[in-house]
């Protein structure tokens, strides 16, 4: 049972019997360790749901109040890029799941391959996102910092979007509310992107560790829990995409 036993003269002898090296000292068994850390990850994801919940609540209220502004502002987003990013993330979830599977099957090469693919897809997502953010900056659609209402007061001034949607000009007070849309757009996608950046950083660390042979000795907890995090971040995007890009399409 115990890892250390006091001998008669008070010295402590460390006795490691049948414990795999990755079992932490305070757990009684590997199963308990896996159960506990896995449960902790699910709880953490629960706090993440509540965290994003505050943003989604604000979004829903503002969208109900300023629906016309939200529709026209959403037309400024590029559905092509949004769809591409959705696809990128879904594929990355698949490669991540394959990574977990490779770790369980103790296939080191495949694990490194799938983790690297996930890493690449995550970077691709951020790359596409930065293209979109740059476009917002160029069109004065960054609230508070680089902002102008003119695309909504006079939609025809923006022929590319106008030719597709033929939006009517918004009244000045409603046009001003498009800034609220972009505030929420940047807050929500920014918070999501921050989670992606954290995820990619951990992935980098995991790839290095996987090359040293970690995770393929039967100890898959870390990979599995990271997989849960990665899928969660994907699911957040699955909600963000329709709410931000497709307002007038459903």
């Amino acid at each position, binding site marked *: *049972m*115990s*890892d*250390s036993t*006091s001998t008669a003269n*008070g010295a*402590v002898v460390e006795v490691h019997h049948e414990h795999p090296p990755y079992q*932490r*000292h*305070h757990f*009684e068994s590997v199963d*308990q360790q896996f*159960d*506990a*850390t896995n*449960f*902790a990850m699910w*709880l*953490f994801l*629960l*706090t*993440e749901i*509540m*965290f*994003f*919940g*505050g*943003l989604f*609540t*604000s979004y829903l*209220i*503002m969208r109900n*109040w*300023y629906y016309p502004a939200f529709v026209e502002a959403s037309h400024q987003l590029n559905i092509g890029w949004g769809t591409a990013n959705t696809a990128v993330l879904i594929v990355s979830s698949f490669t991540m799941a394959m990574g977990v599977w490779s770790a369980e099957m103790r296939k080191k090469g495949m694990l490194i391959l799938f983790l690297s693919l996930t890493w690449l897809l995550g970077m691709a997502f951020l790359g596409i996102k930065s293209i979109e953010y740059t476009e917002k900056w160029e069109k004065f659609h960054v*609230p*508070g*910092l680089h*902002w102008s209402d003119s695309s909504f007061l006079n939609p025809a001034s923006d022929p590319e979007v106008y030719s597709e949607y033929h939006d009517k000009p918004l009244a000045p007070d409603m046009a*001003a*509310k498009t*800034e*609220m849309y972009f*505030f*929420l757009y940047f*807050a929500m996608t920014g*918070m999501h992107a921050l989670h992606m950046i954290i995820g990619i950083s951990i992935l980098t660390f995991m790839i290095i560790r996987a090359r040293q042979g970690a995770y393929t000795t039967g100890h898959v907890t870390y990979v599995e829990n990271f997989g849960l995090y990665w899928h969660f971040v994907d699911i957040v995007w699955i909600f963000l995409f329709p709410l931000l890009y497709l307002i007038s399409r459903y």
Partner: protein
Amino acid sequence: MSAATIVSLPDQSTARIPKMNFLTKENGLLSWLLTGDHKRIATLYLISISFFFFVGGSLAGLIRLELLTPQTSLMAADTYNKVFTMHGVIMVFLFLVPSVPATIGNFVIPMMVGARDLALPKINLLSWYLYIIAGFMVIYTMAAGGVDTGWTFTSPLSTHYLNTHVISTGLAIFVAGFSSIFTGLNFIVTIHKMRAPGMTWFRLPLFVWSNYAASILMVLGTPVLAITLVLVVLERTVHIGVFDPAYGGDPILFQHLFWFYSHPAVYIMILPGMGVISEVVSTFSRKRVFGYTAVAFSSVAIAVFGFFVWAHHMFIMGISNYAALVFSLLTMLVAVPSAIKIFNWAFTLYKGSITFETPMLYAFGFMGLFTIGGMTGVFLGATGTDIHLTETYFIVAHFHFVMVGGMLMAFLSGIHFWWPKWTGRMYPEKISQLAAIVTFIGFNFTFFPQFILGTLGMPRRYAAYPPEFQALNVFSTAGATILGVGYLLPILYLTWSLRYGAVAGNNPWQATGLEWQTQSPPLTENFPEIPIVDHEAYDYEWLERQQEKEVASVG
């Protein structure tokens, strides 16, 4: 005080603190700063929250001094605003929320469930570092000129009108929030997955149940506050956002999001304290807690109902009458599980062999003061009375009865109760009984007059007031002085006892919790061998049989 006592100490001439314990295992600053041991992290937490309690308490002293006279005599009105804001921020986020869970809970929960440590020791340490970072950010805020929004950060006051350090305070609370999320998460995982063989849910001490309930609130409520503060900070930096009506936002939305956390936070602050009281009342009346299951479930019920009462902070803020009606009813409902606890403690005392050691005196203080605090909460939950009493000193008195009269009393009760386990030495009994009584008297002098002031209509959060309120304010300030003495005494004699206190032995109180069945101070791994639990919580007959067995085997 009668001579009756349950304290049984080992023979002082031969007794020694065990050479090998969690305090002596490793030496050096790094062994503390990089520790994974829950008992060491609890010690770090205890030192840091005591520091912030001292800072917050000094600010409270300044507030009371300013209110000694009707005019703004000690400080200007805007300084006063900063002082009460910093008092609130420090006391709520840096003292009350982590007080019992992060110190006492951290220390005893793994032992109570029969584990070697919390499930996630590194996350536990991370939680302390986040707390310290938040603490430094708050100190920075104070040094840089403070913040004067009140601890509630009401928008648009916080986002539009004020030019003080809202951003650094907001981020500090964001960081402190994650510290509390990680503590709560660790507790839930530990209680679910780390219980010793035979330790079923209904054999857990009630302290564990109440911390479990508080942890649910921490894990589900705190992230909402975190995102709300992020939105406030963004709103201040880019001057567009969802809260300020000038930008098209909704200030009521801020109130909803803020109180969605900050009302449950009240239960985060009080539930662990209730757990302490359950342990202490049972130990010092030598009886199993009456209605164990009811007390256990009432903690969970408080956590669940606690999520559905937040709008009672907003009755005068423009929510609909129907919403006010529903939230008023739900508020009264949440008083029921609290009352269940008070009644069950009273029944535990009934025909018990009561002794009056210091933890018990604090527990009696808790029961009286929390009852008054809780009952006045029902007054405030009734919409009609709320409209008259809200934003007056009645509110101030109400929540100080719950937070200071309740939680702080429980915290001190718990610190005295587990002090022998923590340090291996007893605190001096007589002077600590005196401190408990001084605290109780000082507390009532300070806060009872504020109920009267509130009913008379004295508004809160002003540096000046009409001269006819002065007499009661002088009473209150005088009481605060006595209260201050009551809080300084424990700091002095507990420090003294670290070196000169009597050696406590394993179980000075003859208590039944697993933490008392191991040496004091405990080993780093808590138990030489993981215990197998074959008895219910608070089973004093089991304890007696254990001790007979021990005597027999030693003899």
